[in-house]
């Protein structure tokens, strides 16, 4: 139903990313929240092609058991536990330690939020928690705002990856400040993952075009009317954006530049054009 993308003859459909010595075949990191059916979730994850997926750490319930854990395990998808719901560095540390123990990974998506209404990262607590966790051997994937200064601080205190938001979690507003995302990617020495706020595939492609190394999303897929189709769209968008980012786009110009040759026009056309030349005296405009 959702065929794998076709590689172009000279380039692979996707190029892998290596984080903390681990190579991931896909640059699309998925979340698992926002969908009630584990069957549809599994189909969507497979359609997305993801190799890394986030989970929350919550109380074990006899009804659910460890069904999500076994789902990810049987599909060979690496698990990235998050610290969703934590407000302080102290909360985040306990949750990260539980994730490490339960899932046997020292990777953690560090979320330290300020309040329930905005779910925005609390930058002060986040920098503190990143330093604490990094010093305890965790590989911290820090979910942060789109502030380039905070992103740099996170890198300084030992973040393994910085994950700026495009827009607040679950809003589907896309990338509200592309300029800031580009500033972050232009100076970062660690992988940059656009995390949160995306609504549709073009925004995932934009994230990659802005220089992000990967995209993390959940709601855009899990709350879509057809999660499996949207997952596949996101997979292609991330690949398209990555390819485009490395392809050297043309500069933006205000006036047209003919892509057909001017030489060799037949007489009838050149005579007609000569009569119409005075129409073309637009003022000079240029960007950059």
């Amino acid at each position, binding site marked *: 139903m959702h065929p794998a993308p076709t590689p172009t003859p000279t380039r692979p459909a996707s190029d892998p990313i290596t984080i903390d010595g681990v190579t991931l075949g896909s640059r699309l990191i998925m*979340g*698992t*929240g*926002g*969908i009630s059916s584990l069957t549809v*979730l599994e189909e969507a994850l497979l359609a997305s092609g993801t190799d890394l997926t*986030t*989970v*929350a*750490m*919550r*109380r*074990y319930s*006899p009804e*659910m*058991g*460890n069904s*999500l*854990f*076994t789902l*990810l*395990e049987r599909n060979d998808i690496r*698990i990235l*536990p*998050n610290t*969703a719901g934590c407000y302080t560095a102290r909360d985040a540390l*306990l949750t990260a*330690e*539980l*994730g*490490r*123990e*339960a*899932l*046997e990974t020292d990777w953690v998506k560090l*979320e330290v939020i300020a309040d329930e209404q905005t779910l925005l990262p609390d930058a002060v607590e986040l920098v503190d928690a990143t330093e604490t966790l990094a010093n305890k051997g965790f590989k911290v994937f820090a979910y942060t705002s789109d502030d380039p200064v905070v992103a740099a601080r996170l890198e300084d205190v030992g973040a393994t990856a910085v994950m700026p938001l495009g827009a607040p*979690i679950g809003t589907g507003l896309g990338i509200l400040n592309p300029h800031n995302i580009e500033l972050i990617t232009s100076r970062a020495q660690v992988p940059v993952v656009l995390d*949160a706020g995306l609504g549709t595939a073009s925004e995932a492609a934009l994230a990659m075009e802005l220089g992000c190394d990967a995209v993390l999303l*959940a*709601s855009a897929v899990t709350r879509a009317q057809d999660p499996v189709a949207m997952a596949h769209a996101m997979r292609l968008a991330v690949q398209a954006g990555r390819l485009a980012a490395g392809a050297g786009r043309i500069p933006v110009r205000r006036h047209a530049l003919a892509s057909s040759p001017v030489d060799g026009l037949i007489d009838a056309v050149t005579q007609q054009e000569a009569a119409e030349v005075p129409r073309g005296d637009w003022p000079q405009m240029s960007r950059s």
Partner: protein
Amino acid sequence: MHTLTLNGAAHDVAPGSRLIDLIAEVTTRSLNTDGTPEDGGRLGVAVAVDATVVPRSQWHATELTDGQNVEIITAMQGG
């Protein structure tokens, strides 16, 4: 009987029970003394007693006492 709090609810255990017995009961898996499942799979849970993580290697050696707060945690859906 000892009464402790398990994932927010009161739970009785026989005196002398160890943490590993409780985890085996809750997850309905038989566990080796090192905390790994006897079926060779992975358990995917972590345990905190009174807000401190107890590594699986210590589950067997940890005796449960009255009034303890035990949290058994696993992966759930989330962003």
